[in-house]
């Protein structure tokens, strides 16, 4: 174990996977110097046949990922800010997510798409989206939302070694956060949630960037005599229902925290699962702490107003804990 930054953990996973398998290639806009730092140094080690800067042409990049994967490569495509997934969305939604079924299972698409998501830093509406709900709704792609450096490294390895397209959602604002990362080669399986903190009164399900404020909220709640269990799903597709259902059967009270806009968010999907499968265990309505259905404003005070905070989580959890 050693303490590493989130970005560094991603960088290590890329180095190790490129070393391990010569079929792994990386491309995207500015991956050589790496605006987020995650692909830094790969060019010096592996050269332009393994990693290269592309023109700005997202619609082509996502299509190329499909073609290169069909041609036998394990593709890592960096899309920078996740708002730029939108400019590349055709091949994602119409090709990547559908071709396996449509070709009668002939195609295998080992594609990993990295992109940074989330707000909170006055980047304004076109650089602050959290679009995992769109991806979840496509059906044919995996969605990983690592919250810690250890999970970032382990989930990225699983994605790169996998047989299906995976969106690896980087918590943009958390790139500098550090945490313990195991030594040596390891993977983190998809579809296995982590219990980040055990508790008995209320379950906080926190997605990606929201893990940190949820853990902060759990501490505050403890001081108020409320014991919160914090669960990090780690992947949204596939989704670990069992871990969440087990926790909810114990606590009967749930808050889901998600940085996506509320409507059709991961949070609302999880709430639907709970209504369906844990109805008898629930002692209070399932609460969602999300971003309202607005574009992210620029001004720091306005952004703070709509951004899920520790205080929002504490108040939602307190309300749920008190409900008869």
């Amino acid at each position, binding site marked *: 174990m050693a303490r590493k930054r989130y970005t560094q953990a991603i960088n290590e996973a890329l180095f190790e996977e490129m070393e391990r398998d010569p079929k792994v290639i990386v491309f995207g806009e*500015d991956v*050589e110097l790496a605006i987020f730092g995650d692909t830094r140094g790969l060019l010096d080690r592996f050269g332009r046949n393994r990693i290269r800067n592309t023109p*700005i042409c997202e619609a082509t990049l996502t299509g190329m990922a499909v073609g290169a994967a069909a041609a036998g490569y394990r593709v890592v495509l960096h899309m920078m800010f996740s708002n730029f997934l939108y400019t590349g969305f055709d091949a994602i939604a119409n090709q990547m997510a559908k071709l396996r079924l449509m070709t009668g299972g002939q195609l295998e698409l080992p594609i990993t798409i990295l992109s940074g998501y989330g707000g909170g830093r006055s980047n304004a509406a076109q650089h602050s989206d959290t679009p995992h709900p769109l991806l979840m709704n496509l059906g044919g792609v995996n969605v990983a939302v690592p919250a810690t450096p250890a999970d970032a490294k382990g989930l990225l390895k699983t994605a790169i070694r996998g047989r299906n397209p995976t969106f690896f959602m980087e918590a943009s604002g958390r790139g500098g956060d550090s945490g313990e990362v195991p030594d040596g080669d390891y993977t983190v399986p998809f579809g296995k949630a982590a219990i980040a903190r055990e508790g008995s009164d209320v379950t906080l399900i926190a997605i990606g960037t929201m893990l940190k404020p949820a853990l902060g909220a759990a501490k505050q709640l403890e001081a108020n005599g409320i014991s919160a269990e914090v669960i990090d799903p780690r992947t949204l597709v596939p989704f670990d229902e069992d871990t969440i259902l087990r926790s909810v059967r114990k606590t009967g009270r749930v808050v889901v925290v998600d940085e996506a806009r509320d409507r059709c968010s991961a949070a609302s999907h999880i709430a639907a699962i709970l209504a369906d499968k844990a109805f008898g265990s629930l002692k209070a309505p399932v609460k969602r702490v999300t971003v309202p259905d607005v574009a992210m404003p*620029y001004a720091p005070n306005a952004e703070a107003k709509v951004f899920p905070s520790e205080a929002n989580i504490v108040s939602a959890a307190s309300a749920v804990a008190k409900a008869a």
Partner: protein
Amino acid sequence: MTTQPSGGPTPEQSLALYERMLLIRRTEEKLSADAAAGVLPGAVHLYIGQEAVATGVCMQLKDSDWITSTHRGHGHFLAKGGDVNAMMAEIWGKKTGICKGMGGSMHVADLSKGILGANGIVGGGLAISVGAAFGSKLSNDGRVTVCFFGDGAANQGVFMECLNVSSLWELPVVFVCEHNHFCEFTRAEQVTSGEIINRARAFGIHAVKVDGNDVEAVWRATAEAVALARSGKGPCFIEAETYRIKGHMEFEKELLAGGKYRELDEIEQWRARDPITRHGERLVKAGIATAAQLEEIGARVARQVEEAVAFSHRSEPADESLVFDLMFAGQKP
């Protein structure tokens, strides 16, 4: 706009070009200093070194003409007559900002001046400009739309689609590609095949190349392009060669942690071709202004920038409730 027989600007227009470029420069120098001091709320992409393009183009336009802009949009905004106080306040996230603090640096827009907005999406303005020009064509309103975009944006597929539609339908749009040699930290030649101007020519579009650091050359080329577009003969294309003196964005050094994509020498060579210094020297040489008169202009501009900053500082923060009021027209989110 009246034109000298030579096709160049009148002395008054020449002075106006100088003052406008200087306003953009001094405004951004202040933003650069404030970014370095860590006091601005968000990131800024500066236009320093490219002022002649926006200024030479926009001073050929009427308020009613449209422009679309980019993430590097302060220069376009000010050149088209946007208010410096309102832009500065926007960047500071204030209620008095031109977008009420909701958009910030990358999204400054002023519809009353025909500024459809800066844009955080590279290539985002291209199709918007074609749509605006389509509207002008349908209503025969005599307006021209100018689309500013970078050499990087020229690699988006939508560029080719826009060239096709606008040429096919003879839309009154002028595409202005600012070739500043970089797409973020990648040299343009590493990601661009052939000449961008030939892409326009392939669609039968009248296309010219100009020295983007020579405001009069830009001014003249725009006069011709706008006249053609306005007369209903379809789109025009201008490729303006220039150079981005500052980083892709402020804080670039910290972001790249020692990574390098250009030599300091190159920046110095382009500084020697500074569009404002060059134009100032020309004014003095032509007897249009004395050095002392240029200094007066400089002092006036400096006061304007100081006032814009003071205005921003004394303005109230953005009104948070607007987030909900502004999302839709006449509807709650």
